[in-house]
Every structure is written in C-alpha cells, then in structure tokens.
C-alpha cells in the first residue's frame, strides 16, 4: 500500500533541485550526473552533521558532568569543529619508524570508504535514496563487515602493543555483536518479506487511525529494536562498549599511532558509522522517513528521518555520560550468553507472529514468550554472580 499522506513540494525539494540541475546537462550525461549529485549530497551532509554532533556531544557531556564544555570559539563555542578541523589538517603526520607504511596509510582510507558506502542504500526521505537495491539491507551489512578489516589493518600496521590489543578487542567485539545485529534485523525481513529498504519503509508507512504501523510497536519488533540498539552501540565502539579505546588501559586502541588528519578520519568514520546505524535502526523499526502520527505527514519526510537519527545520537551521548565501561568478559558473556539466544528466540517468535494471523491472541502469546525469556535468562545469568553490597578494602 502506498503512503497515504500528500506529497508536497517541500517534501521533494531536493529531488526537484537535482532534476533541475541535471537537466542543464546534455542528455547523455544525465544518469551519471544524477548519481554524482546524490553522492556529493551524502559526502557533504553527513560530515556536516558530524561537525554539529561533536559540539552537541561536548556541550551535552559537559552539562552532565557539571562543567561548561567548549565555549571559546564563536557563539557558545559552536565554531569549535571548524577550529578542530583546521588543527587536524595542519598537524604533522607522524608515522612510526617501524610501521608498515603501506598498510598504515591504507587503513583509514578503507575505513572511510566502506563507511560512506553504507549510506548509498539508506532512504533518507521519500524517493531520496542513492541506489534502490533489491538486497539493500545485505549491502549495508556487507559494507559494515568490511570495516572490521580496516580496524585490524590500523592496529597491526602500527607495530605497537596497545594498537594491536585495541584492534584485537575491537575485531572480537565487532564480530560478536554483528551476529546479534544481523539476527535482529532478520526479523524485519521475515515480516516485510523483502531485503529492499524501500519496501521495508513502505510496509511500515501505513496508519490505523492516526497511529503508524511501525515495527517497534509489536512485541518482536520492540525486542529486536532493543537488541539492535545494543549491538549497534557495540559495533560503533561507543560507551559503554568502548573497550577498544579504553584510555586507562590501552591509550587509544587501534588508532594510537595515528596523528593529524589520519586520526581525524578515524574520528569521522566512528561518527559516520553511528549515523549509518542509527539511520538503519530508524529505517527498520521506526518507519524510516514516515511521520509518527498521520496528521503530521505534511512535514517533509527527510526532516522526520534526520529527527529520528538525531534522537538516536542523543541517546548515544546520554549513555556515554551515564554508564561505566564494561569489562571484556562481561562484554563477551552478554553477547554470546544473552544476546545470541534471545535474538534466536525472537526469530521463532517472529515466525509465530507471522503465522498466527491477525487478532489479539498473537500479541499476548508473543509478548508473554519474550518477557518470560527475558526474565528467565536474566535470572539465570545473574544466578551464580553473587552480586551484593560491595566492600572496598582501602576505601571504607
């Protein structure tokens, strides 16, 4: 079923702009030009968003930690990212003497390219998708998997113990949580019946009364969304899963030996990966670019998409300011002993949901199974831990 809200000019403004620009060219160049314009838009918009996010993050963290945050460059410190960018560009690029120069140089480039590729299939608005692939979801995760190798390349080529340890941690963590990430996305594919992100958004862009048919509003969808969010946090090495960059233990992990602009590339790539995964989460579970209530459909679709992404980014920052870092064994235990069985069970529940037909019964059954499994597995996991009041030897 097509979307019910009216398509306005403001909604399609970027498409119209692109078509107008493309029509200035001879017709032989038009298809290539339209792709190039789309790519330029992605390469311009998301790093711009990154610059904004760094300010918001530092201001927000400052507020949570009862301090001011950046406040010297420009009004309220909002030009800080420009100063940081100039600093990164003009810094000396130091490559360790023993480093593997070729691999050391390639690692940040491979990382940035693979991260940018993921945006190609993300529908950021109605008709606003660079490539509408039949298997767009698979493409996105294939590109995500390719980033792991670049992290390894960075850590290994630096010839530094801390870099190597950081890279090993990062790769182990990314592989473990990728399982949960993929399995929680598969539930959406099972219900939507397609790997195409356009069709997944279309399936959610329907309304009962004023409420949307987003997948997060179903028992299996909520469980998948929570698992997806946790796995996405781990996949992007964000706090509380930032062990690969644990400053107190291994300096800065796999990018310890990078300086100047190469370090900036790692920094950008981390945030771009956050945007990509937030966008994917919004597309899979929060209806992509569709409006949260039917009568809000007059607001352009791309505004909704970026609002959802920025809400997710805010939660990322909030978690960073709130939660302490996990230990390596806690990280692995959670991935393999809780996240994996829970997502596998969720697959079964989703199949049940699919074949029980419409009605209230499937809501009760699916919710009961998931809630029961959550409580049972949580209890089992905590059973032998003996967590009680702590006593500290020298701090009482």
């Amino acid at each position, binding site marked *: 079923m097509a979307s019910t809200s009216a398509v306005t000019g403001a909604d399609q403004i970027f498409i119209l702009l692109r078509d107008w620009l493309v029509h200035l060219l001879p017709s032989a160049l038009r298809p290539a030009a339209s792709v190039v314009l789309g790519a330029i838009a992605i390469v311009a918009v998301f790093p711009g968003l990154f610059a904004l996010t760094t300010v918001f993050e530092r201001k927000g963290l400052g507020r949570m930690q009862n301090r001011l945050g950046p406040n010297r460059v420009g009004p309220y410190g909002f030009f800080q990212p420009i100063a940081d960018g100039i600093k990164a560009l003009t810094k000396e690029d130091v490559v360790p003497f023993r480093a593997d120069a070729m691999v050391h140089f390639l690692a940040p480039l491979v990382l940035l390219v693979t991260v940018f590729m993921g945006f190609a299939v993300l529908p950021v608005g109605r008709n606003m998708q660079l490539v509408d692939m039949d298997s767009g979801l698979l493409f996105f995760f294939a590109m995500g998997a*390719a980033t792991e190798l670049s992290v390894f390349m960075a850590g290994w080529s630096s010839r530094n113990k801390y870099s190597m340890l950081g890279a090993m941690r990062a790769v182990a963590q990314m592989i473990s949580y990728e399982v949960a990430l993929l399995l929680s996305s598969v539930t959406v594919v099972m219900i939507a019946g397609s790997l195409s992100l356009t069709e997944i958004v279309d399936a959610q862009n329907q309304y009962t009364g004023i409420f949307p048919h987003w997948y997060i509003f179903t028992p299996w969808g909520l469980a998948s969304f929570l698992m997806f969010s946790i796995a996405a946090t781990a996949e992007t090495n964000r706090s509380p899963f930032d062990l690969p960059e644990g400053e107190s233990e291994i300096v800065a992990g796999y990018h310890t030996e990078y300086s100047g602009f190469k370090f900036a590339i790692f920094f950008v790539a981390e945030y771009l990966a956050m945007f990509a995964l937030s966008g994917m989460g919004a597309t899979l579970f929060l209806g992509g670019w569709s409006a949260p209530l039917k009568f809000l459909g007059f607001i352009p679709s791309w505004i909704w998409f970026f609002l959802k992404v920025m809400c997710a980014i805010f939660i990322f920052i909030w978690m960073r300011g709130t939660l302490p870092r996990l230990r390596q064994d806690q990280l692995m235990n959670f991935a393999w002993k809780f996240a994996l069985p829970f997502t596998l069970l969720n697959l079964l529940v989703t199949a049940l949901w699919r074949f029980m037909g419409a009605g209230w019964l499937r809501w009760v059954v699916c919710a009961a199974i998931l809630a029961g499994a959550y409580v049972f597995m949580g209890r089992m996991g905590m059973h032998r831990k003996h967590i009680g009041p702590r006593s500290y030897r020298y701090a009482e």
Partner: protein
Amino acid sequence: MHVVFFLIAALTLGGALAAVLLKNTVHCALAVTLAFLGHALLFLRLDAQFAGFAQILIYIGAVAILVVFAILLTRGSEAPASGIFSKTWLLGLLIAAAVFAVLGWSIIESARALAVDSAAPQVTVHDIGVALVGRYVLPLEIVALLLTAATIGAVIVALHEKERPR
C-alpha cells in the same frame, strides 16, 4: 563494457598472485582479501546481487578476519628462513592445473549444451529464498546440521578441561 571486466580480472588475479608471492603472511592475507573483493565484483557484474554481497559479508567480513586472527595467534608474520615456497611446489602446481582443467572443461561443455541466445535469467533475492526453502530445503538442512555440529565441536574444544585425577 569489457574494460570493466578486465579491470576486475586484473584486480582478482593480482590479489591472488600477491597472496602467493608476498613474504609477510599478514600481507598475504590482505592480498587474498583483494581477490575475494574481485570475486564479489564479478558476481555483481553478472547481476547476482545476493551472491556478490554474501561474498563480501562472509569472505571479507568473516573468513579474512579468521585467517588474520589465525596468523596472529599462531606464530609471527615474518617469512620463514627456508623461503616462502614449499618443497612440493611442483606437485601443487600439477594438482592446481588439473583442477583448473576440469573446471575449464566443464564450463566449455556447459556453454555448448545451452542455447547460444538464451537470455540471462532475472533472479531476485525473493526467488533465491523460495528456492532455498522449497526445492533445496534438504541440502539447506544438511548444511545447517553440519554447521551446528561444527559449532558444538568448537565449544567443546574451547571448554575448560576438568582436573582429572590420575
């Protein structure tokens, strides 16, 4: 059109050759990843999206990482003193040539068996899914069983060994 094919072929062959000829084992692993990428691009050029992306996801995302981890966890990545070629390289060459001959022969034969002007089939991911759980459900289940057995085996290998009284 052929230019793209030859570029991809050069990338694949170059990666494969580098994987054999380079001295540093980690460099070899990275070069073989390049060859995997070339394969994926070839699949994509044949309009086989699913196979191409699955190739990237599995071979670059998992197999290459596994190879690299195996190299790092076993021994140093420096080349051994005895050179990078095994003593039985002639036998290896013969086996590789034989495999290549069989594959090449079967491809040439299949090209003769098919009608020359038959159009390339349009296969969507949906068709692949239907075929997997329809006609090919038994092979799928066998593969699933094999993988489960392998997983259980890996867990048993990794288990803590109990102290055995002697």
